[in-house]
């Protein structure tokens, strides 16, 4: 009986949240995501152009761009600035590779106090783990299909 009451109040709470939330800020959020994501990609494009002028070939260059962006995002996360960017840009800060970097660095810093092995070490892959897991599984699937159809 107590359980039923909780469920009921959960529903009520959902309703309250919906009523209290500002009406459909989705367009505004999308514009911000567009601007934030667009700027991050332009920084990537700038790095690409610079590295190309140093004669790096495509694959090395793209990897170098990723590594630099990952490093910058880690630093900004450590300084506490990336969450500020995230508050403005939403998905614009999550979807680029910098968001992946942030998702690795943020829990690493957060859980350091629980120890370097089971704190930092275990929690560092809280988000990146699933990404690497399903990315790897998909790549195996792609590889097997490619083996038979190429």
């Amino acid at each position, binding site marked *: 009986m107590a359980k039923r009451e909780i469920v009921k109040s959960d529903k009520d709470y959902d309703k309250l949240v919906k009523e209290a939330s500002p009406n459909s800020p989705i367009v505004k959020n999308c514009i911000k995501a567009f601007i934030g994501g667009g700027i991050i990609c332009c920084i990537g494009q700038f790095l690409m152009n610079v590295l190309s002028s140093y004669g790096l070939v495509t694959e090395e260059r793209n990897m170098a761009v990723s590594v630099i962006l990952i490093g910058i995002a880690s*630093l900004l996360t450590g300084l506490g600035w990336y969450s500020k960017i995230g508050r403005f840009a939403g998905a614009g800060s999550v979807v680029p590779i910098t968001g992946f970097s942030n998702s690795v660095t943020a829990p690493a810093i957060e859980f350091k106090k629980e120890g370097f092995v089971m704190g930092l070490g275990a929690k560092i892959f809280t988000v990146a783990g699933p990404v690497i897991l399903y990315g790897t599984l998909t790549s195996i699937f792609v590889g097997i299909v490619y083996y038979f159809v190429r």
Partner: protein
Amino acid sequence: MDYVKAFIVGGGICVIGQILIDKTKLTSARILVLFVVLGCLLGGLGWYDKLIDFAGAGASVPLPGFGNTLAKGVMAEVDARGFAGALTGGLKSAAGGITAAIVFAFLAAVIFSPKEK
């Protein structure tokens, strides 16, 4: 011109993510997983490379570009090593990015402490 294309395509991919977050309550972790998997599948079909040819960093910097790297790596490895390449190619191609993320994250965790929200 390449900056305009990068901005529009990169921003556009982020808008898709934003719509998914706002409309479906998907958490950002699920968005990341979804985008990498999608990028990997599109990469396997050879479609994502066309987007990169057009938009440059606008397509390679967002996470589907990471998935595309996995797909391209696994296909190159299958070409080079046969069936065993399906097992090794993906992670091999992503090793640089993953290792960079681990190293920078570890360094950041050693240097910085959690900030008050």
